């Protein structure tokens, strides 16, 4: 698997890990400019660690849904181009603002990913939508945000089974999410994100033509 330009396997005191270059954000280990990208803390990191073909080359325009405190989106902004970070909860956004301070290509937005019309006046069409929202209706969020993707863009989503239905078998949840998503997207690759994230499904998908 080729990693995007700007991401590499870097040695931190004898331990090799994914890393990007930028200001540290969450107390991660650093070596010079390089900062460790911990796959246990980041679903996109786990997708790369699993060798999923994300299609990321580096320099992409990105819309990140569910940016939370900025752990993953800070790494994305380190290797990506203009990066729009949408998060709904005010408390983690304080830390997201800290992460964005030193990253001029990271644009934080306190918005609800279920209401794209409230940020489509700011966000331009993007090459990649990264989605990590722990809310019920994750397939619907992805479908609603399809409007942001260019024709050959990619959706990189981490689906959390317990957010959909805590009582159901995760496999059943993933089946129904895959099915709902297939109406709007062509699914290119899916993989469970264990052992980094239990009961999460990583998805790489391309928008279908309308």
């Amino acid at each position, binding site marked *: 698997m080729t990693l995007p330009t700007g991401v590499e396997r870097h040695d931190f005191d004898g331990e090799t890990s994914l890393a990007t270059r930028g200001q540290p954000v969450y107390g991660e280990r650093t070596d010079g400019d390089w900062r460790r990208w911990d796959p246990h803390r980041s679903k996109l990191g786990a997708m790369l660690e699993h060798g999923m073909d994300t299609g990321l080359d580096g320099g992409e325009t990105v819309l990140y849904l569910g940016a*939370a405190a900025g752990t993953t989106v800070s790494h994305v902004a380190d290797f990506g181009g*203009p990066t729009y970070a949408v998060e*709904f*909860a*005010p*408390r*983690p*956004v*304080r830390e*997201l*603002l800290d992460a*964005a*301070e030193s990253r*001029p*290509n*990271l*644009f*934080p*937005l*306190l918005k609800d990913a279920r209401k794209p*019309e*409230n940020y*489509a*006046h*700011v*966000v*331009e*069409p*993007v090459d990649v939508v990264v989605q990590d929202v*722990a*809310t*019920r209706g994750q397939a619907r969020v992805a479908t609603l945000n399809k*409007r*942001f993707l260019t024709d050959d863009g990619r959706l990189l989503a981490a689906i959390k089974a*317990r*957010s959909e*239905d*805590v*009582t159901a078998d995760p496999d059943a949840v993933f089946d129904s999410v895959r099915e709902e998503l297939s109406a709007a997207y062509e699914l290119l690759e899916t993989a469970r994100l264990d052992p980094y994230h239990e009961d999460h499904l990583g998805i790489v998908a391309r928008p279908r033509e309308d």
Partner: protein
Amino acid sequence: MSNGWFAGLDPDDDAAAVEQIEAGRADTPEDWPQQAVEAGFADDEAAYYDRLHEVTMAATSAAVAEQEGADDQQLVHAVRAMADCERTANELAERVAEWGGGRHGDSGSGVEYARSLVERDDEDEGDRALRALAEQTADLADEADSLRAYIERTAPAVAPNLSMLAGPVLAARLVSLAGGLETLAKKPSGTVQVLGAEDALFAHLKGNAPSPKHGVIFTHEYVRGTRREDRGSAARALAGKLSIAARVDHYSGDRRPELQAELDERIERIQARAEAGTEEQE
């Protein structure tokens, strides 16, 4: 005419830009950087992105401050004030009812009776004094209602998960009884279960009373709506989820909708015991 956030803006007007980021809307994204350059809003795309970074930082920071302006201490004051207003309104309403009963032979009671007196015409000074007191009573009850509305608006911003599980008013009461969200987050769930039942708890600790099964969480439909034999279990299950919710709210602020599903499922199982006709303890 562009729907972009920069449309019609003076490039140097920070306040207007922040307002547009927060309140603007568009159905579909467009190539905003290019449009902004064409419209003369920015010299080139690099300048556009610099400006976008400035205004999204400012707008998001302002939006966070606004939503968090309602901090847990504001909530504590509001819920205590609401309780004061309710209690005082009820006490005064009793006085009004007693007085009105003597004067007019009415048999009304409560705040509703006080409200009915406000509409009456005065015949003499005694009527005027009674009506003035009735007015004060009704105003206090109105104030309690508007404090309740304030709590319902702000509790979900301060403690989203706790408010989701407990409802905003009970969430605010729990925060208030603990003295703050942080102290609530640090309490074990057994303490959360009996918050508001301190008198009964101390009587129990002195050895002459049974342990209380629930405090203020009794007002939650999941406790009240469970049959008596199973209320202890329901209260324990509810308190467990509420204390997890308080911890998530204090330490991370994430939303965890699965907590609701988990609680629903636990309570359903506890309430199913009544249908099964069993008395088994957990």
